[in-house]
């Protein structure tokens, strides 16, 4: 039952398979040539791999092959466990993902504590968070957003796929952060005592 395969589909399949990183349609076109209808080939491949042990997935604008999620139990063993993130890092990541772009002060206003320098560094080092310019307010604070690597790692097609984001939005829990309230409730934290409440990472 060998079917003569569309050469364009084969080319896109091989390119994505050999790639070390997820690729956008534009990237792929640079390899397979301008004559190939890359989106059409991607669609065919998606269909073809549906239900197989390997899947073609879209994350943000990028595409890659990965093993099917339901086979995790077979593959997980003998693999180093991904480094555990501190609670501070997890919360900070969630705040950035659901509110992006946000400044450090805004993250702190939601969490009610200062975040240590290391927390953002860990997220940036993981390739999930990046500085995304500055907020045009007094002080011009840096603002942070998530990356396409974040979408890839957490298996999200786009930020719209963030778990529960619609409900949170509807409940007003993703509204702009009321910075005034943050100031009102918390005085300045002195350095020595900060130790106690600082992140444990």
């Amino acid at each position: 039952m060998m079917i003569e395969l569309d050469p364009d589909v084969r080319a896109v399949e091989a390119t994505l398979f050999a790639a070390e990183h997820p690729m956008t349609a534009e990237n792929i076109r640079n390899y397979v040539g301008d004559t190939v209808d890359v989106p059409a080939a991607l669609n065919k491949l998606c269909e073809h791999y549906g239900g197989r042990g390997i899947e073609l997935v879209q994350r943000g604008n990028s595409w890659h092959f990965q093993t099917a999620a339901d086979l995790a139990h077979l593959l997980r063993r003998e693999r180093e466990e991904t480094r555990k993130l501190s609670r501070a890092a997890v919360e900070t990541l969630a705040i950035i993902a659901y509110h992006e772009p946000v400044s450090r002060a805004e993250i702190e206003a939601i969490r009610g504590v200062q975040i240590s320098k290391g927390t953002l560094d860990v997220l940036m080092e993981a390739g999930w968070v990046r500085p995304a310019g500055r907020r045009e307010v007094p002080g011009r604070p840096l603002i942070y957003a998530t990356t396409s690597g974040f979408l890839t790692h957490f298996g999200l097609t786009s930020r719209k796929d963030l778990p529960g984001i619609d409900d949170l939005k509807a409940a007003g829990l993703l509204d702009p952060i009321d910075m005034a309230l943050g100031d009102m409730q918390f005085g300045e934290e002195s350095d020595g005592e900060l130790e106690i409440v600082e992140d444990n990472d």
Partner: protein
Amino acid sequence: MNADGLFEEDITLREADERAADVLTIDIDGWEGPLDLLLTLARNQKVDLRAISILALVEQYLVFIEQARTLKLELAADYLVMAAWLAYLKSSLLLPKDPTIDPSPEELAMRLQLRLERLNAMRESGARLMARDRVGRDVFVRALPEGLRVVKARAWECDYFDLITAYGQIKARSQPVFHVVKKRAVMTLEEALDRVSSMIGLAVNWTTIESFLPDHAEPALRKSALASSFVAALELAKRGTIDLQQDAMFAPLKIRLKA
């Protein structure tokens, strides 16, 4: 969704709840600030944060802080700041309503509740994110992809005109060099002799040598003519054609036809 096991944390919410219930075993290091403590107390009270009693929550927090103090636990300043603020909020809520106060205590209580909800939402969302099928943990990409390479091919650019111009310039640079001195405006001795000889007939009286120079000569030519005319005058004097006279050093040199 079950909260158990969602946090990749040594402290799960459940453990935290237990700690809150038994204040004698509190470990202040486990709290990420007063808001975190408040949230845990609130969750202890009700799962739905929108239905909690802020007044009861404030009371629990203040009791908690008081107990920590009696145990001589050192509390970070922000816990105490929060305690002071909550004590103020509590008394405001209990006092008869004063419409002149803005924001009203009810408004402040609502904002506090919203903050707790917001923190809780982010905490749960973080846990749900961590529980997704993650690359490298639940799903896997190829371990050893062949990799895609970009081979840089350098193309050099040079057009024909550049090429021959370059050669022309090399040639021009290496051509033999001739030195030609530009013709300058001068009056030769011969010219001066002719000129002075022909004009001397007019000079019956003493006449300055400058009078024999061309009238509208360039300064350079005039200098040359002066030098040549001087030598010519000496020559004519030597021949006995003219007389020379100078009253003093650097005084005007005068000549006249020999009588």
